[in-house]
């Protein structure tokens, strides 16, 4: 491994020509820097959600524990779910969407760089908006899926639910803006020759996820607007005493909520599909099937929402339909598992930390998948739903699936992001502690659930047969604390002192590894020409890609090879200006616009504190600020 001193000059760990200083981060529109902002922010929220989880487990370590009272527990439980889903796992996926999509498809930035910055800032502000109340005992307290009519003002006075309704709306703006941005980017900005079936698998999964976001989040927005109107303007969408229908909320929420599960897990599937081939020195097995199964999961994901509602009494026909569609979705998911295993089959597997986490996903997500099929049988799920069995299931999916994949992605792409390698020894500790802790925490929950323990209870009585399982779960959760601490330490230490990585430390086949680490602000000095799925292996290991069909589309192989690999050595030291590449101008206007939206929503919240006059005044102020900042943004030149 090269050390910093011996590294070739292009392997500097600061991108060439990159501006420095706080202001440069505030005004950045560079997709890579925005990705890194997402990384820090979402890791912070991941740790926060983890602290909430560990506190919850500390309360549940034994029966009749009094560490937390009911009110505080309910807030922590709600915030743990909300934080992990909306503020940690989704933005951790966004890290890779931002950082990787342009690099993988051979683009110099996303389609709308300033909109991208706006997405980040509105995420940050929305995250702060929904998180801060926990420090005042005012956090949302109705669970992450906030079932009506508990969330109506009749049953939830105080600001708790107001923060949730408005906070999630703010976060939804961020997600939707980002989704349209990435869809446009992938459709329009692929390098010449990069047709869809040559796109790296992560970009494919990201592509599918953006469509799911675009179709699912508006439904959540509608559900939230109804709730917001119930709470602020006296409508009766969900208020049962006035004839409202609480099941309307459940249907709307889960039409969003189930696709959301795949929104959370497909990016991780994509990352694993990147890590395994370079670890096994072998192309991804069944690439087209992986693409189709991803699309199928995305498509079926919209037809299964009511399997969250088998206990509400929808009747035998609806139960049958949603049971069967839910079973169907297991097939494309299983196909992915087998394709990953056969990617490894016949390979030469190097167990890097990234590879371990990727394999960990395959091994552990399978358990979540199997318990998922158990939930597809409506009569059986009547004994499982809303118990700890469900808690076990979705943590195997979201921790064993999403988080394992994201960790794999972080270890794999850290060298590309920061130009240095993460420590493999610490990484191994992180992996094994994580694996043991995670299984210790969540596996016993299968038992406590089937032995009758409801979820979302702040305490339980002695003598119910749940004590041992809860004790093991709590100890397992405590084990995840050192695991995560080791990861964070490794992260910051490696960022400063890790060995210099060079452009392609993993001998990986895709485009992002052809440019220096970290990449220059313009990414590609010359836009590469693509003629296969694995442009780098075409040059370095032609044997590995020989039988994958190549088409030339007007370029011959030699020409494309000349473009793809050695570009960085000639131009890596040059800035965009020297190369004559136009770059978008840095600007703080997206941030100002995001602040204006926060003021707008915050003003609405104030109607419940200060009364209407002050609130309307603030909202008008926020609205004017929004109009002016948008005007300034839209009339200022991009480049």
């Amino acid at each position, binding site marked *: 491994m090269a050390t910093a001193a011996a590294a070739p000059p292009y392997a500097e760990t600061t991108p060439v020509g990159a501006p420095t200083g706080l202001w440069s981060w505030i005004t950045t529109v560079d997709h890579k820097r925005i990705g890194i902002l997402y990384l820090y922010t979402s890791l912070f929220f991941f740790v926060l959600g983890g602290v909430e989880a560990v506190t919850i487990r500390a309360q549940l370590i034994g029966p009749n524990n009094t560490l937390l009272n*009911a009110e505080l527990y*309910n807030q922590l439980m709600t915030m743990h779910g909300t934080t992990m889903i909306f503020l940690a796992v989704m933005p951790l996926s966004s890290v890779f969407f931002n950082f990787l999509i342009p690099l993988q498809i051979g683009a110099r930035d996303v389609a709308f760089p300033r909109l991208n910055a706006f997405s980040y800032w509105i995420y940050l502000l929305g995250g702060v908006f929904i998180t801060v109340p926990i420090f005042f005992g005012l956090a949302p*307290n*109705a669970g992450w899926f906030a*079932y009506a*009519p*508990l969330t109506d003002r009749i049953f*939830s006075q105080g600001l708790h639910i107001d923060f949730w309704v408005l906070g999630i709306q703010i976060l939804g703006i961020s997600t939707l803006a980002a989704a349209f941005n990435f869809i446009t980017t992938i459709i329009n900005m692929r390098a010449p020759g990069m047709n869809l079936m040559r796109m790296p698998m992560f970009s494919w999964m990201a592509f599918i996820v953006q469509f799911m976001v675009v179709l699912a989040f508006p439904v959540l927005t509608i559900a939230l607007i109804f709730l917001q109107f119930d709470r602020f303007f006296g409508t009766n969408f969900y208020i049962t005493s006035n004839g*409202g*229908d*609480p*099941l309307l909320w459940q249907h709307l929420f889960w039409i969003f909520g189930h696709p959301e599960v795949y929104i959370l897990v497909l990016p991780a599937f994509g990352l694993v599909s990147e890590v395994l081939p370079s670890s096994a020195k*072998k192309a991804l*097995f*069944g690439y087209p099937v992986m693409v189709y199964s991803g699309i199928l999961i995305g498509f079926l994901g919209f037809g299964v929402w009511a399997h969250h509602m088998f*206990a509400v*009494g929808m*009747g*035998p026909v609806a139960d*049958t339909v949603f*049971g069967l569609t839910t079973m169907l979705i*297991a*097939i494309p998911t299983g196909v992915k*598992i*087998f394709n990953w295993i*056969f990617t490894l*089959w*016949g*390979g*030469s*597997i*190097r167990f890097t930390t990234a590879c371990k986490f990727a394999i960990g996903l395959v091994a552990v997500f*399978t*358990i979540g998948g*199997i*318990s998922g*099929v*158990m939930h597809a049988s409506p*009569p059986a799920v*009547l*004994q499982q*739903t*809303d118990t700890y069995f469900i808690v076990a299931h979705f943590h195997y999916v979201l921790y064993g699936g999403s988080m394992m994949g994201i960790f794999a992605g972080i270890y794999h792409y850290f060298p590309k992001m920061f130009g240095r390698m993460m420590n493999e020894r610490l990484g191994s500790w992180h992996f094994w502690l994580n694996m*043991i802790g995670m299984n210790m925490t969540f*596996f016993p929950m299968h038992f406590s659930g089937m*032995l*009758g*323990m*409801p*979820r*979302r*209870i702040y*305490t*339980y009585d*002695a003598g*119910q047969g*749940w004590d041992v399982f809860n004790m093991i779960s709590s100890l397992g959760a405590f084990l995840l604390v050192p695991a995560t601490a080791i990861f964070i330490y490794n992260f910051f230490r490696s960022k400063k002192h890790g060995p210099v990585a060079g452009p392609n430390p993993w001998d990986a086949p895709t485009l992002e590894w052809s440019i220096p680490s970290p990449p220059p602000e313009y990414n590609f000095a010359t836009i590469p020409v693509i003629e296969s799925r694995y442009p780098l292996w075409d040059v370095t290991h032609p*044997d590995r890609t020989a*039988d*994958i069909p190549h088409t030339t589309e007007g370029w011959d192989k030699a020409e494309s090879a000349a473009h793809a690999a050695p570009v960085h050595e000639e131009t890596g030291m040059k800035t965009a200006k020297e190369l004559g590449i136009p770059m978008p101008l840095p600007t703080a206007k997206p941030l100002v616009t995001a602040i204006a939206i926060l003021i707008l929503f915050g003003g609405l919240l104030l109607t419940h504190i200060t009364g209407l006059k002050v609130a309307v005044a603030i909202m008008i102020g926020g609205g004017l600020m929004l109009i002016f900042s948008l005007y300034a943004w839209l009339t200022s030149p991009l480049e």
Partner: protein
Amino acid sequence: MNRKIHWRPFAHAAVTAGLLLALGACSQEYPNSTFNPTTDFNTDIIALWDSLLFWGTVVFVVVEVLLLWTLWRYRRRPDGPEPTNVHGHTALEITWTVLPAVILVMIAIPTVRTIFRTQAPAPAGSLQVEVIGHQWWWEFRYPELGITTANELYIPVGRTVNFQLTTADVIHSFWIPQLGGKRDLIGNRVNHMWFTPDPAMTTQVFNGSCNEFCGTSHANMKFRTFAVQPNEFESWARHQKSAAAYPVAQESTGALAEAQQEPAAQDSATVAPVAAAPSGFTADSGYAFPAADLPDFARPHTPLPSGLTFTEGLTGDAERGRQIYSRTACIGCHKIEGNPISIGIIGPNLTHIASRTTIAGALYPNDTRHLSLWIKNSRVMKHGSIMPTLGKGEHDPITGAVINTGGLTDQEIADIVAYLQALK
């Protein structure tokens, strides 16, 4: 019991199977297990679960063995061969698409059959029970028998019970894990669920709980189900539909009370004393599950919250208690059949409160100490409790106020407790 094995994450299948066997043997240790075929409903569910667990285990073993073997076989070795050059295999792809589909069909067929069987209308002649969820307690009504009770459900073994589930406020979910699946209680609609307890079952108690998050004290919304023999149920029902056992003093109630009480009084007069009654039967109050026979899991162990005190050694007077009860806030929410002024319906029906083993949503045992403290400051006893704090000088944790005027002294509370304890 080989519990230690749960530390090993990959022993999924073996452990579950082992546990299932063990559970049959020691249901006392897992009193809320879902694996006991106590009703037709639960037997159906267990049959499905068994097939799900079997196929799940098969898939799990196949995947993990294949994965681990691949990892071992194709680990990178210094002298290892270069990877073989395979990028796909159509026959394999079809295989692992079709095989899971076949397994799913085998799960789907019994699933669909069970859906339609368990959701068919309840058989004629079922015992009708209305379950009404409240934040955070359960109301049970037997419309055919004219009984309203709270937090303790009696059902006869061998007879189908048809539950009609509604809610007074937010969504709740009704679940007795030992007896079958759960069903939500949703505003503006009536849900149904039915099952038939095994006729061969001995008289026993099961814990139940609310399973849909319903606000602050969701965890404290529990109940007990007593599955009893038919003759026990008959005796219990006959007594429960009678008016309160504690006589209403004539001078203070007047004609209205008499008019109301008359049919009920006749009823209670017809309760025949059971000669040489077995456990649980009493001459004057019909059958009730004997408190002394309650297993440990059905006795609440909730610790008393700190900071609550009650004057020691007070003796309550039931008649004085009745008078205090009848002129204070109690009557606004509670009903006591036979006490003509106590007609509230917001809180639990107290007609036969002394026949119950627990109070406050099965959070505390129904004894003098807990009942006294409950009346004194229920909001400290149970987070979020809607019943107001009543004790003089007590701090109401929800409103933040200290109760002064109108608050009950310890002696007054002791009197009310004496009255309530007379309501067998």
